[in-house]
C-alpha cells in the first residue's frame, strides 16, 4: 500500500460529477442518504440522493463488507445425506463507499485485522477487496468526536483509498492514496487537474480537541480489571446492542441456522458483548454476569486486547456509540475518567 499520495485539484461546486462517473462505470455506490430524521449509508442510483451536510451517519459503513445478515453456509437436507452448496465469493460486486468520514474508513483496519487473523474470513475480505473507499475530510466536529485521541484526525487518510477535502466554494483537494484508489480515480481523472501550489489541507479541517492519551489508557487498563469503576460507569447501561451495531470497528457475530422444509442456510448475524446471552453457558453459568463485566469487556477489547494482540486500535473515535446510546454512555467521557483513575 506504500504509495506516494497523489494530490490533485477538482474544480467544481459539488462532487456529483464524480459520482456520475462511478455509477456510469457500473459500480455499486453506497453513500449517506437521508430518510426522515435519520441519515445512513445506502446504495444510491443518482448523486442527488447523497446527503452531504450531516457530520456522521447513525450507523457506520461496515455493512458494505460485514452485512447485518450474511449467508455463510447453504445446504439442502436429503434423505440421509446433506448437500452443502459453495458460496461464490467472486460474485461480490465492485463497489464504492462514497462520502464516508475518515473515522468510518479507519474502522475497516481493525475489522480487517480480526477477519484476517490466522483464518481468512472471505465473506469480509473478498467484499473489502472489491470496495474502494472515497472519504470526505471533516470540516466540522461535535462534542462526541474524539478521533485525535485514538491516532486519527479529521483529515486522516488511514483506510481511505481516495480522500476529498473541500478547500473552497468551487474547489476540492483530491488525494489518491492507494493503488485501488488510483484504479478508481481513472474513471474521473479527466475532471481533475494537477495541484499547482501546495494546498494547506489543515486549514480546511475541523479542530477536534484531544480527550485522552491512548497509550496512558492502554497502560492503565492492564491493572484495573477488578476496579469498581466498571460497575459505576455501567450502572445506567441497559444492555442493548446499539453501541456495537453502529460501531465501525465491532466485528462480533453470531451463527443462527434457518431451514424451511428441506432447504436452509447458516446465517452470520451481528452480535454484541453487551447482551447478557453473549457468553452464557448451557449450564446457566455466565462468565460475564453483570452489565459492568460486559462494559469492561467492550472497553478492554478495543483499548487493550486488540492493540496488544493485533497491533490495531479497536476504536476510531467517531463517537457513534455515544450518540446512539439511549442512556448517553459517552465513551469519550468514560475513557477520560479511566485515564485519570
Amino acid at each position, binding site marked *: 500500500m506504500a504509495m506516494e499520495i497523489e494530490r490533485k485539484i477538482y474544480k467544481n461546486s459539488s462532487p456529483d460529477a464524480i459520482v456520475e462517473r462511478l455509477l456510469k462505470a457500473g459500480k455499486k455506490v453506497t453513500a449517506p442518504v437521508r430518510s426522515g430524521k435519520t441519515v445512513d449509508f445506502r446504495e444510491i442510483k443518482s448523486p442527488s440522493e447523497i446527503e452531504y451536510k450531516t457530520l456522521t451517519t447513525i450507523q457506520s459503513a461496515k455493512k458494505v463488507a460485514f452485512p447485518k445478515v450474511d449467508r455463510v453456509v447453504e445446504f439442502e437436507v436429503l434423505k440421509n445425506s446433506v448437500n*452443502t452448496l459453495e458460496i461464490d465469493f467472486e460474485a461480490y460486486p465492485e463497489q464504492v463507499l462514497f462520502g464516508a468520514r475518515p473515522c468510518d474508513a479507519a474502522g475497516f483496519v481493525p475489522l480487517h485485522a480480526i477477519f484476517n487473523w490466522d483464518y481468512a474470513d472471505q465473506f469480509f475480505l473478498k467484499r473489502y477487496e472489491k470496495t474502494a473507499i472515497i472519504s470526505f475530510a471533516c470540516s466540522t466536529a461535535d462534542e462526541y468526536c474524539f478521533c485525535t485521541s485514538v491516532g486519527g484526525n479529521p483529515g486522516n487518510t488511514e483506510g481511505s483509498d481516495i480522500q476529498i477535502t473541500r478547500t473552497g466554494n468551487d474547489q476540492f483537494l483530491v488525494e489518491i492514496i492507494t493503488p485501488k484508489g488510483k484504479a478508481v480515480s481513472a474513471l474521473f481523472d479527466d475532471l481533475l487537474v494537477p495541484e499547482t501550489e501546495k494546498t494547506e489541507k489543515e486549514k480546511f479541517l475541523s479542530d477536534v480537541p484531544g480527550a485522552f492519551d491512548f497509550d496512558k489508557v492502554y497502560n492503565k487498563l492492564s491493572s484495573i480489571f477488578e476496579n469498581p469503576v466498571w460497575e459505576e460507569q455501567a450502572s445506567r447501561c441497559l444492555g442493548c446492542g446499539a453501541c456495537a451495531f453502529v460501531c465501525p470497528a465491532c466485528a462480533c*457475530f453470531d*451463527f443462527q441456522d434457518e431451514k424451511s422444509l428441506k432447504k436452509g442456510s447458516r446465517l452470520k448475524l451481528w*452480535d454484541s458483548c453487551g447482551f447478557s446471552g453473549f457468553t452464557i453457558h448451557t449450564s446457566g453459568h455466565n462468565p460475564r454476569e453483570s452489565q459492568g*463485566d460486559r462494559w469492561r469487556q467492550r472497553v478492554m477489547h478495543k483499548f487493550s486486547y486488540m492493540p496488544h494482540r493485533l497491533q490495531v486500535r479497536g476504536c476510531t473515535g467517531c463517537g457513534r456509540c455515544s450518540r446512539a446510546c439511549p442512556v448517553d454512555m459517552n465513551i469519550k467521557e468514560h475513557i477520560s475518567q479511566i485515564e485519570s483513575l
Partner: protein
Amino acid sequence: MSNGNIYMPNLMRIEKITEEAPFVKTFRLKFEDEKVAEEFSFRTGQFGEYSVFGEGESTFCIASSPTRKGYIECTFRQAGKVTSSLARLDEGDVIGFRGPYGNIFPIDEWKGKNLLFIAGGIALPPMRSVIWNCLDTRENYKDITILYGAKTVNDLVYKNELEEWKNRPDVNLVVTVDPGGETPDWKGEIGFVPTVLEKMKPSPDNTIAIVCGPPIMIKFTFPVLEKAGFKDDMIYTTLENRMKCGLGKCGRCNVGELFVCKDGPVFTKAQLNSLPDEY
C-alpha cells in the same frame, strides 16, 4: 476448507452411537469424503464444531485418541437445541464437522513423568482422549492414576472402558460417586472428587495433574493439589467457554485477552492464575 470458506463444515456419517448415561451419548464419526479423511489429523485436547444442518453448531472436544485412526468420537449431553437434535439422530445419519481447533495437551513434554487424571461428570470426554493417547504409548510414562467421579453410578460415562482401565495392571483407577449416588452393590469410593483426592494423598514429585470438571469441582480440587505440593505449571485443565466460530473471530470465548478457542482450551493453572477471573 473447500473454496476458502472457513465456516463450511465437512460431512461426517455416524458409524456408532453408544448410550453412555441418561441423556449422554457418544458418536463415532467417519468422514464422507475419502480425501478429507486422509488429510485429516488432530492432536489430543483439540475440539471441533459439530453441526446439525438447520439447527446450529455445538462445541465438543474430540473424545477419541489420535492414535485410533479412521474415525473420531465425541460425547455430549442432551441439553440445548443442537444437542437435542443430535440426540434424535440415528446411526447412518450425516452431520457437519469443523475442526480441529484449539491447542493440545503437551503429552510429549510429559514423557517420563507420572500422570494424575482427575475428571468429574461430563468432563471425562476431553480427558478420555488424552488418557487413551497416553495408554496407547504407555511406555513413555511412569505410573498413571485416574480419579473419576460422577453424581450417581448411572451417570458414570464410558462404563466399559472404566472396566478396561480397572483391569489393566499399569493403571490405578479410582471411581467415586457423590454421597447418596451409590447403588447397593457399588464397590467404588463414595464422596466428592476433591475429598477422595485428599484421601489418596497424591505425591507431586515428577507428576503432572490434569483436571477437568464443572467449575465447582475445579474450585475445590485446585486447593487440594496445591496443599499436596503440586506447582501451578504442573496442573493442566481445559476450559469450556461458550463458542460459535471456534477460530478466534466471533469474539465471545475470551478470558482476558486470550481466546479459549485459539489460545486454549488447554491451559496450565499458572496461565489461569495470570488471567482475570472471567471463565
